[in-house]
């Protein structure tokens, strides 16, 4: 058994206390690992803040240390709650979120400083977004705790599958049906304006619909497995089984048409496809869905001017650089990434504010400029870790609903990051969608913390030692007693 890990792991494992399994063969909860990684996240956030302040020539005060400690404290509350209500949850999910959220906060604050300086030059003032984002983070963590405490077992969600689906659809459709004055910000009709703040119900609908699809697929799984006609050597599903996917495609395209927003449509559709594929293990669904989606894209391209514009901006952002709604934003983002190069300009030394919407859609361009390829790659690695740990929980959990929901949620994070980072880096056409945890936006942050709470719940169920295992060893024990009787033929009552 000379495994290649022996080389790398031999020295470190000698001193490591307990990797996966604690004493007595019980799976370790690994909450200690989570605690120190959260501390690490707070250190990263604090040092990022120090660098921004120093490079922006702000006054360095002890207040920064307090900010860092406060950030650690807030996540420590979340950590204690996880210890109490989901002791076997994955130890990496929460620290990854803490790093991303902290880095996002610092970047938003850093762009605030730049925009404030710019506003001062032209004699106006800029109200900062960072304080608002801090409040949103606090609310989001409160919501995270609420979900973790209220949902003791993710399987209870199957009971509310259809309710979730209905509420999700209504939430998704609501901004499209509301009058423009109540729902439109910057040309995207995806908001509900509520006086002081506005929320984006689509972000929450995403999770609700995922719960619905997972519950639906678990109850109707056999319908999709049944074979229909064979066409060209492939088994096509029967027409009536195709209902849900056709409905999903229709709803997505409907939202897309009414809200002028490709990003969420792509996200919903991708997640539904992955859920179908996971539930049935049949690639034909993915093929069918992709065909439907490309047909939808072609139709949308020929019908809507804003789609044509997005595609034109994607193909050559410099050609439409000067036109209104042209490639200016993408080109500026690419210039930012180019300025950053491999190692970046350093936090606080770049000029990320020259990209429009630098703290929302284009925050990855800002990170790419100031931290460079190396820093952006680290951020993407953390996203990858987050999605991977989510998928791992989904693989290990024992019930089908948990598998589907966990897989869907984890995939949603990965797909969302792909859509937005792909848009910023000009891999795919730019679509307005938030970067999970990084970009400024209350709804996105709240929804993603709910998502993470659900992932933690599922991974807790996956790693928790099985309960009925306790009575089980007793049964062989009784059987063993029987053995003792048979085993002693030379004893006093041997022949019976």
């Amino acid at each position, binding site marked *: 058994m000379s495994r290649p890990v022996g080389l790398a*792991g031999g020295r470190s494992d000698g001193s490591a206390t307990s990797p996966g399994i604690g004493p007595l063969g019980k799976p370790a909860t690994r909450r200690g*690992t989570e605690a120190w*990684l959260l501390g690490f996240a707070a250190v990263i956030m604090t040092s990022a803040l120090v660098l921004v302040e120093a490079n922006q020539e702000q006054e360095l005060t002890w207040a920064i240390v307090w900010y860092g400690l406060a950030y650690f404290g807030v996540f420590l509350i979340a950590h204690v709650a996880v210890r109490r209500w989901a002791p076997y949850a994955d130890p990496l999910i929460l620290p990854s979120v803490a790093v991303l959220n902290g880095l996002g906060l610092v970047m938003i604050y850093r762009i605030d400083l730049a925009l404030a300086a710019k506003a001062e030059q032209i004699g106006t003032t800029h109200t900062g977004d960072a304080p608002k984002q801090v409040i949103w983070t606090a609310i989001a963590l409160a919501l995270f705790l609420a979900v973790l405490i209220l949902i003791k077992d993710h399987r209870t969600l199957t009971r509310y599958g259809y309710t979730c689906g209905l509420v999700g659809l209504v939430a998704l459709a609501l901004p499209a049906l509301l009058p423009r004055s109540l729902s439109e910000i910057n040309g995207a009709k995806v908001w509900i304006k509520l006086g002081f703040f506005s929320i984006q119900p689509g972000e929450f609908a995403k999770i609700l619909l995922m719960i619905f699809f997972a519950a639906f697929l678990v109850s109707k799984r056999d319908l999709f497995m049944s074979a229909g006609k064979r066409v060209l050597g492939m088994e096509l599903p029967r027409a009536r089984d195709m209902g849900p996917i056709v409905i999903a495609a229709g709803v997505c395209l409907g939202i897309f048409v009414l809200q002028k927003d490709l990003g969420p449509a792509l996200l919903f559709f991708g997640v539904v496809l992955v859920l179908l594929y996971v539930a049935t293990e049949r690639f034909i669904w993915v093929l069918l869905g992709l065909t439907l989606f490309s047909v939808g894209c072609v139709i949308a391209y020929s019908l809507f001017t804003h789609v044509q514009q997005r595609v034109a901006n994607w193909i050559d952002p410099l050609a439409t650089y000067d036109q209104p709604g042209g490639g200016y934003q993408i080109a500026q983002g690419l210039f930012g990434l180019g300025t950053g190069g491999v190692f970046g300009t350093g936090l606080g030394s770049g000029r990320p504010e020259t990209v429009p919407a630098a703290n929302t859609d284009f925050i990855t361009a800002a990170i790419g400029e100031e*931290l460079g390829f190396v820093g952006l790659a680290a951020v993407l690695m953390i996203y990858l870790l987050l999605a991977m740990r989510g998928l791992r929980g989904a693989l290990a959990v024992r019930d089908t609903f948990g598998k589907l929901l966990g897989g869907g949620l984890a995939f949603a994070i990965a797909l969302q990051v792909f859509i937005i980072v792909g848009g910023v880096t000009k891999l795919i056409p730019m679509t307005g969608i938030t970067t999970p945890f990084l970009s400024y936006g209350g709804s996105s942050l709240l929804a993603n913390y709910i998502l993470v709470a659900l992932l933690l719940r599922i991974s807790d169920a996956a790693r928790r030692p099985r309960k009925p295992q306790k009575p089980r060893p007793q049964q062989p024990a009784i059987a063993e007693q029987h053995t003792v009787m048979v085993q002693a033929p030379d004893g006093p009552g041997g022949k019976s």
Partner: protein
Amino acid sequence: MPELVVQLTRAGFLALLWLFVFAALRVVRSDLYAASGLRVELPGRRDKQAKRPIGGRKTARQLVVTHGALAGTRIALDGRPILIGRADDSTLVLDDDYASTRHARLSLRGTDWYVEDLGSTNGTYLDRAKVTAPLRVPLGVPIRIGKTVIELRP
């Protein structure tokens, strides 16, 4: 700030970010071994418990049905006793007219597996010998129960 400090902090922060990634990956690596509760020895920590079975003769890992209606069936041995018979709660449920409801049991003692007959009508045979008291089962030796033949494999 002096230029040197700027450059050092710039590299330092990137190093910090990647240090976090590597710390997380280390947790992932150590977790790989604990996946699904399976105990796989880590290199460097197996020296105490696991030396003997690896250095000495091989231990049985699975039970294979070689003849009979269930031929080809494999059961992984996890240390729990294996009940064989026509009863529904047996580990290996035989559909065989010559087998009894509770026919025989394989159980682990120390590092060896023992077979014992549970008072069956037609008897259990280890190779050619009839099993009357618990007998140690070497690897690859057939156990006959009715029309079924099973073997232990490493």
